[in-house]
């Protein structure tokens, strides 16, 4: 997903206005719906990640009952999740693109801006601060009121107090302009469908009109949580590749007290001796062969910059430019970055330079990508005409482009690892469907994992038929356990359902049928940031189709059985109609006086 402008260059409000449509804040109706969604999804994500059975309580209250829509509402979402460390609260909710979910595992949140967009929207329309209450320990509760300084791009803390509590979790209240009379049905649908796809969650919703919607959990079983995994080569573009390469060389950036203690240990230095630069230099020289490579790197920087440990903690290395022999670092105290020219003849510079050439291509591939071993890496380098020993930091732009192209073209990579996905599972899905729709027939299927451009995905699908279901085919779409409510007709699932030849399965347009489709992926190919419809990717379309065909076959065999049962009933009725007639006719034919005791015969019919 690319945004109009990166956050650093524009103010948050500008950012908001430029992206509001994409992010689902185009009008008061849509905005209040999107806000509910973003907050509920954050709560569910937080609970999932900590394997907590979610209790979520959503309220929407108007500030003035009398006024007509659109008007101001206070939206509150309260959860029993892990909460957020109070130091992070201003950052998490006062900064766009602050997110903890960039890792490659499946979560509802993706972009790190959902909550902030809602907060920004609220502030822009009502000029009221967001209230965030968080407890991470179940005893102290931090209560914040935060405004975003739109000019300076900084959170302004209006209020911060600590009270005591017995409950862990986060509660966030946003005052915003909304049109509940128009958005209400979508919000209710959203809550309803969310509890369907999250059967282990309890979700309560109190709407502005005083209506209460309670969805108790159906099961206490939380599906297994996804593992965080390395990327697959197929999903990688040049930009990502560049970032991964630079990431590999920044392992030295976090020099904290723990790290320093370790280094001192390796140097076998005691007390404050290390503050003496000369002594330290000698000790390092002496102990050099015995040091770990990480320690060697940190000490090389220390010596090149002529710093002691105390000074080292206060800076962060930003980059080392081997070509220009420069090192750029950020000084926390001075809040400024500095560029230093390095002495190329120094032993320690040479070490650093060598280190900063980075891993060999082969090592890089095996270490940074999932499911790439020595053997595959070798084959790949041969395929792409690279030396396996090629240092990645020394790659030219052109070479990087070639590398990323070749990664996409090489056909021998194993398919992506799906362990990072969190499908609901057939059992839970079926339970949810049975509970929600009370159908005569339900069948679910989870397809095996597949991948599109390097992103693994799993399709789960269920169909329910008859019972309390009203006539007409109804589709419920989910992606990463999020209900998708808007733009149904442009969604890939819709397309698949439309393409299938329902006649073959004896299904008509007016059949009482519900189809539930759930796509799980580390990267759902949404058409927009609003996360409302999934774009067609051949691989996804194929899996959806296979799932649907499988279920349709199940359904049609159920229907023909049902047809048989109806026939059976009709059959028995026929006996009741005809047997008395036969009895009557044969009585006269045989010149008997009374009819035979033919009723016995019905015992033979089950």
């Amino acid at each position, binding site marked *: 997903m690319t945004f109009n402008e990166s956050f650093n260059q524009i103010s948050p409000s500008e950012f908001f206005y430029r992206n509001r449509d994409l992010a689902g804040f185009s009008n008061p109706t849509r905005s209040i719906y999107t806000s509910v969604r973003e907050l509920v999804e954050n709560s569910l994500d937080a609970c999932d990640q900590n394997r907590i059975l979610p209790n979520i309580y959503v309220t929407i209250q108007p500030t003035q009952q009398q006024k007509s829509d659109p008007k101001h509402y206070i939206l509150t979402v309260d959860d029993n999740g892990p909460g957020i460390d109070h130091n992070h609260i201003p950052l998490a909710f006062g900064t766009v693109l602050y997110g903890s979910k960039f890792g490659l595992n499946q979560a509802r949140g993706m972009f790190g801006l959902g909550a902030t967009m809602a907060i920004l929207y609220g502030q822009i329309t009502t000029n009221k601060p967001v209230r965030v209450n968080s407890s991470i320990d179940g005893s102290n509760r931090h209560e914040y009121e935060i405004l975003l300084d739109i000019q300076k791009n900084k959170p302004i803390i209006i209020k911060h107090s600590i009270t005591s509590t017995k409950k862990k979790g986060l509660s966030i209240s946003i005052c915003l302009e909304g049109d509940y009379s128009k958005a209400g049905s979508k919000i209710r649908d959203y809550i309803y469908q969310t509890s369907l796809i999250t059967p282990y969650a309890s979700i309560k919703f109190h709407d502005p009109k005083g209506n209460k919607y309670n969805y108790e959990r159906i099961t206490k079983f939380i599906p297994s949580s996804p593992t965080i995994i390395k990327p697959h080569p197929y999903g990688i573009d040049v930009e990502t590749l560049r970032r991964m390469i630079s990431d590999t060389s920044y392992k030295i950036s976090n020099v904290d007290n723990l790290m320093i203690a370790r280094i001192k240990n390796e140097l076998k230095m005691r007390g404050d001796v290390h503050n003496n630069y000369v002594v330290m230099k000698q000790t390092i020289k002496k102990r050099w062969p015995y040091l770990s490579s990480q320690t060697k790197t940190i000490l090389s920087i220390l010596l090149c910059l002529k710093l002691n440990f105390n000074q080292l903690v206060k800076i962060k290395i930003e980059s080392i430019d081997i070509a220009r022999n420069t090192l750029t670092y950020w000084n926390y105290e001075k809040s400024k970055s500095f560029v230093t020219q390095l002495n190329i003849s120094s032993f320690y510079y040479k070490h650093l330079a060598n280190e900063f050439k980075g891993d060999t291509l082969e090592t890089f591939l095996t270490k940074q990508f999932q499911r790439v071993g020595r053997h595959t890496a070798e084959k790949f380098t041969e395929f792409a005409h690279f030396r396996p020993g090629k240092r990645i930091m020394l790659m030219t732009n052109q070479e990087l482009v070639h590398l990323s192209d070749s990664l996409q073209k090489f056909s021998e990579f194993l398919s992506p690892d799906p362990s990072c996905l969190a499908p609901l599972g057939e059992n839970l899905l079926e339970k949810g469907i049975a509970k929600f729709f009370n159908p005569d027939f339900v069948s679910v299927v989870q397809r095996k994992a597949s991948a599109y451009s390097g992103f693994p995905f799993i399709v789960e699908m269920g169909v329910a038929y008859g019972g309390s279901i009203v006539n007409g085919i109804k589709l419920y779409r989910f992606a990463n356990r999020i209900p998708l409510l808007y733009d149904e007709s442009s969604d890939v699932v819709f397309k698949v359902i439309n393409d299938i030849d329902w006649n073959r399965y004896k299904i008509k347009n007016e059949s009482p049928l519900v189809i539930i489709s759930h796509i799980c992926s580390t990267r759902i190919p949404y058409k927009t940031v609003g996360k409302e419809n999934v774009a067609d990717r051949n691989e996804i379309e194929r899996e959806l189709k296979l799932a649907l065909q499988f279920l349709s076959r199940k359904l049609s065999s159920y229907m023909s059985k049902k047809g048989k049962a109806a026939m059976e009933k009709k059959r028995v009725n026929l006996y009741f109609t005809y047997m008395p007639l036969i009895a009557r*006719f044969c009585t006269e*034919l045989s010149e008997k006086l009374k009819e035979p005791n033919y009723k016995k015969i019905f015992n033979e019919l089950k």
Partner: protein
Amino acid sequence: MKYKENKNRILSDLLKKYGARIYNDLDNGIFPKFLIPSRSTRNIIYDKKLRQYVLGNNASMRNSKNILQLRSFTQLVWLAFFANRLIKEQKSSTLRDIYYSSQAFSIDFEDQPESDNIIVDLESVLSRPREDLHIFPEERSSVFGDLVIEYTVPGYEGKRTNLSDHPDGYLIGPSLSSAELIETSADLVIAIEKGGLFTRFIEEKVDKKFKSIIIDTAGQAPRSTRYLLRRLHDELKLPVVILTDGDVYGEHIAMVIKSGSANAAHLRELTVPDAKWLGVWASDIEKYKLPTIPMTESDIKRIHDLKKDPRYQHGIWKTELDVFLKIKRKAELEAFSKYGLTNITDKYLPQKLELAKSL
């Protein structure tokens, strides 16, 4: 014992027997069922000894337990029940009557073909023609000649009629079919395909000139007519000769009287194996210089069909068929009128009758 009474008693007994079987099954909690001889083409075979088509040994089960057969089973039992009443009350009914009567007993036939079919089923089960069950088709043919019959139908019991009393002849209907054949002076039965010629024959006193009973088959002879022919032959020992148009259909009309049709393979007593086809033969067309009309496609196709029939593999049946196929022309009985209206009775008939003696 008189023919009809005898017949009715046998049939009543048979119906009673079937009724009792069904009754006992029901009383014992068993789904009643019976075998119906199969009338599928595979089960229709030509019996050389009987000289007619008969049903083979294949039979299908009609089981009241089978939901697909329950309805037709009930219809069949109803028909037996209804026919039994007809026999007991000495009433007759037509195929169409049956179709409508069923409705009074909440047995509804979808259409008349369905009820007709059940009638054939019952015929097959009992091996008795529907006429015995007092069920008659609407089509009627006629008879004329010196033959005394005695009615058995209610109201006419014992009443006698001479079939030469009415110059238009007598309809071969239920009452005639069930009448006793008392006496005749005739030596011969002439069956003729066409009503027009039948009238001419009466006018020309063919009955007297040739000491014959004349029967108008009105095209393909209805069962009641074939049945009467059979009785005239069997009971009164009269030889039967047949006059038809000179075409393949005429030839087959004669054949059906002689040895039955595949449609009635489940029935005996409808054939007159000794009957002789007098003409008009294909070879007569040449011989008598008859005016002809060309055959149609369907005529020719029909010839090819009949050539496969085992009965057409020998004798005049085969030779005439071959001639028809060769000349591809046909002549009607009326064609003789070219040589005068009485030409057929004065010239053709005596010649052919003479010839028939050697057939």
